[in-house]
């Protein structure tokens, strides 16, 4: 060891008052490169955080030319759609149509007048079509059995149509809707609004298609469970006269208010609720079902006023390119346990998603490859802290046969708008020629075919198969 080295090894090296030598410089600056490593790591982290934020926030909408819009059907669902539309810039409400003139119609016209819209109210949609010649689009939220007539007449009057799901309670009518849309060249969007929900789009495009994070999906389950509810009533002084009810297809005020429960008017909970989620099954699988088995009945309510089934359990079979998929769905209207969600189970992970923001996670199977890349790219958030998890699981791991529960990765996308807003925006932007419809008539038709078959299968009491040709118009 040289004299110099000996000195440098000594803690008191670098005695004051002498010229700096090379060793002083080297050792004095020895830890500076650590800052480089720190900076590089920090940049990587900032990049990851940026991706996470970008996934969270949708780009700001660019306002387009104003559109003249009418609302056809101003009941509960019409109100939901209207509240979402009032948050969309560039819409001029010109007309509202509802046969419950003293109640729904009055309420909605007054609301829109408060927003300074020059809006006219109509009882009969044909009067509206005659009276309003400069409409660009109509939003239809009437009972299912009216959808086809309303849609077809509006399309033929040259309007673009947003029609609530279920497209129709009759497949023949739904088919005519598709054909009319094609013939008139007008747009027909069906109200399966999850198709435009940024959280669902993220799951479909990033997690399932681009990353294939959950591997081969083999099973699905989903549900919409609701608490028991009394039938809808009405203030006696606002009751619609019988003759008018009859003119519009209702034999009583009760049927008018509770049409969803009656055959010939609606399709029951499987159609009202299940339709949204069964639509997601087909969308996420990129497939149509090949068969369905179902059990259901009016087990709780009075069958005289609840013709459709209050409890339904169905099992779909899908044939995808990767193989067979079995998909369970249940809806019950007597207990709200676990609410509503769709749960996709693949051999590498699980995707649980719900329109309600409370659910939206991907779980990695313990045997699957790590997901660090997808976390870095902002597809999912980093897993929930293992430390938090372990406490909940201490009991489970005591038994060696139990597998550890998989890591939970939350979805990075936040969505705080009214649920229907992006789907309506998609429709209006398509009318302006800027976007393609997320749920055109053909897609709505496929879902109607899939869903209405459940009621058939319950009646038949056996497994029903779909023909490939059944889904096409």
């Amino acid at each position: 060891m040289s004299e110099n080295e000996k000195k440098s090894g000594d803690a008191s090296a670098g005695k004051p008052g002498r010229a700096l030598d090379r060793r002083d410089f080297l050792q004095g600056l020895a830890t500076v490169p650590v800052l480089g490593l720190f900076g590089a790591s920090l940049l990587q982290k900032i990049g990851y955080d940026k991706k996470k934020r970008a996934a969270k926030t949708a780009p700001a909408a660019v306002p387009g030319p104003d559109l003249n819009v009418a609302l056809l059907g101003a009941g509960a669902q019409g109100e939901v759609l209207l509240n979402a539309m009032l948050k969309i810039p560039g819409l001029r409400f010109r007309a509202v149509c509802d046969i419950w003139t003293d109640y729904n119609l009055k309420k909605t016209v007054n609301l829109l007048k408060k927003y300074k819209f020059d809006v006219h109210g109509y009882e009969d949609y044909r009067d509206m079509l005659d009276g309003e010649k400069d409409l660009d689009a109509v939003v239809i939220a009437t009972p299912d059995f009216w959808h086809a007539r309303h849609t077809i007449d509006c399309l033929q009057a040259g309007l673009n149509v947003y029609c609530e799901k279920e497209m129709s309670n009759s497949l023949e009518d739904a088919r005519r809707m598709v054909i009319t849309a094609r013939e008139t060249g007008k747009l027909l969007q069906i109200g399966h609004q999850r198709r435009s929900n940024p959280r669902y789009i993220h799951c479909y495009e990033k997690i399932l298609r681009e990353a294939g994070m959950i591997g081969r999906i083999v099973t699905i389950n989903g549900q919409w469970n609701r608490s028991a509810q009394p039938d809808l009533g009405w203030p006696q002084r606002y009751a619609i006269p019988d003759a008018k009810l009859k003119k519009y297809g209702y034999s009583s005020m009760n049927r008018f208010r509770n049409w969803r429960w009656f055959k010939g008017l609606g399709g029951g909970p499987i159609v009202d609720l299940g339709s949204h989620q069964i639509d997601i099954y087909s969308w996420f699988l990129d497939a149509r079902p090949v068969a369905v088995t179902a059990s259901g009945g009016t087990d709780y309510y009075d069958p005289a006023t609840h013709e459709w089934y209050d409890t339904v359990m169905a099992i779909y079979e899908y044939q995808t390119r990767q193989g067979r998929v079995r998909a369970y769905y249940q809806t019950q209207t007597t207990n709200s346990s676990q609410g509503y969600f769709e749960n996709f189970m693949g051999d590498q992970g699980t995707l649980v998603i719900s329109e309600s923001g409370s659910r939206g996670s991907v779980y990695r199977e313990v045997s699957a490859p790590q997901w660090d890349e997808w976390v870095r790219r902002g597809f999912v958030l980093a897993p929930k802290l293992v430390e938090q998890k372990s406490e909940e699981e201490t009991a489970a791991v005591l038994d060696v046969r139990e597998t550890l529960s998989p890591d939970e990765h939350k979805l990075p996308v936040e969505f705080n708008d009214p649920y229907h807003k992006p789907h309506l925006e998609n429709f209006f932007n398509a009318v302006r020629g800027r976007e393609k419809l997320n749920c055109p008539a053909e897609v709505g038709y496929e879902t109607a075919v899939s869903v209405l078959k459940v009621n058939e299968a319950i009646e038949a009491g056996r497994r029903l198969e779909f023909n490939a040709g059944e889904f096409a118009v």
Partner: protein
Amino acid sequence: MDEKKLQQWQMIALVGLRVIIGWHFLYEGVAKLLLGNWSAAGFLLQSKWIFAPVFKWMANNAAVLDAVNVLNMWGLTAIGLGLILGCFTRLAALAGIAIIMLYYVCNPPFVGLFYSIPMEGHYMIVNKNLVEVAGLVVIMLFPTGRFAGLDRILHKLFGKK
């Protein structure tokens, strides 16, 4: 191993300890600065034990809280840089001990005290803050900056003969 050699390795090990603790400080400081809206309020408000009134007073007084926030963010960053670079090492270690002890007595991990803002792990009395303080005490007592650090250069240029 001869004594000199051992001494050299001991110093290298202490420099490693210093850099690692410094990294932690620097990151805590920079991360808070990058957040833009970081505030100590939540941490101070959940304070328990005998000093709780003091910390809660800090959180409830806007001017004091602002000062606490700025001192925290820049203080942690400066201490981190000092420890990594070995620049004013003793002062940095002492400041680090002071700031962490404040955290410790603000939310002490004593059995029977429960907090809603999560702290890592489960402890009785000794937590990672206290371990870090012990590390800083060691660093303060050894002149690692004059072995490997800017202090070596500063000391040589400006130190008293």
